[in-house]
């Protein structure tokens, strides 16, 4: 299938998905956050440390 046809098919398919599924079921792929939240995200990407509960979870240890 040529690239143009694939793009066209995907474009036609998106509204089909929106029609077939109730709005509350669809997960919006893009989330837009405020600048304050954006700064918080970037800070956590740079320097956050895992909580004890997260370390235990990833180690497979119970509560």
């Amino acid at each position, binding site marked *: 299938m040529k690239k143009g046809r694939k793009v066209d098919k995907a474009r036609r*398919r998106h509204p089909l*998905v929106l029609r*077939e*599924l*109730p*709005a*509350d*079921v*669809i*997960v*919006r*792929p*893009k*989330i*837009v*956050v*405020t*600048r*304050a*939240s*954006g*700064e*918080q*995200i*970037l800070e*956590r*990407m*740079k320097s*956050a*440390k*895992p*909580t004890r*509960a*997260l*370390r235990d*979870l*990833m*180690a*497979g240890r*119970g*509560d």
Partner: protein
Amino acid sequence: MEIRALRQTDDRTRFRSGDADLDRFFQAYAGQNQFRHHIGTTYIAVEGREVCGYLTVAAGSIEIDDLPAPARRKLPGYPLPVLRVARLAVDVAFQGSGVGRELLRVALGLALRMRADYGCIGVVVDAKPGAVPFYSRFGFVPLEAIEGLSEARPAPVPMFLSAREIGLAERGSAPRTKH
């Protein structure tokens, strides 16, 4: 207990979490989402043939709104890839037995794989209001979202956990080897 991707042959009709919306999604739409539209994947925790819980994930992105020029130098003006945890539910018969934690661990593992394979800065979960304390314990922080919120009611709270924290937690839990 095994955790694996949903199959078309799995019986979803008997699943009851106590939340009508989560049950309706699993029974009526999880299959369509995954096998027909390919817009999300559901993982199930199974004991024999019984579904103990499920988790639905999808690839997504975060954008930061309204960046004035000075902030643009510091903050990225392009979408940041994330793993979106859209739903997590446990059958009433298995609630309190650690199934939810195991499903969350699988989701966080998926985020690390995504980071290694094609980029992911973290996980965004659409937390039911009652589940916010559960996610907070693991370091998830609430986000103020302007767009892209789920239309489910009651409105879920978007929460973020960085892949950095997940990676550090995983590394800290790996057995140390002598060289």
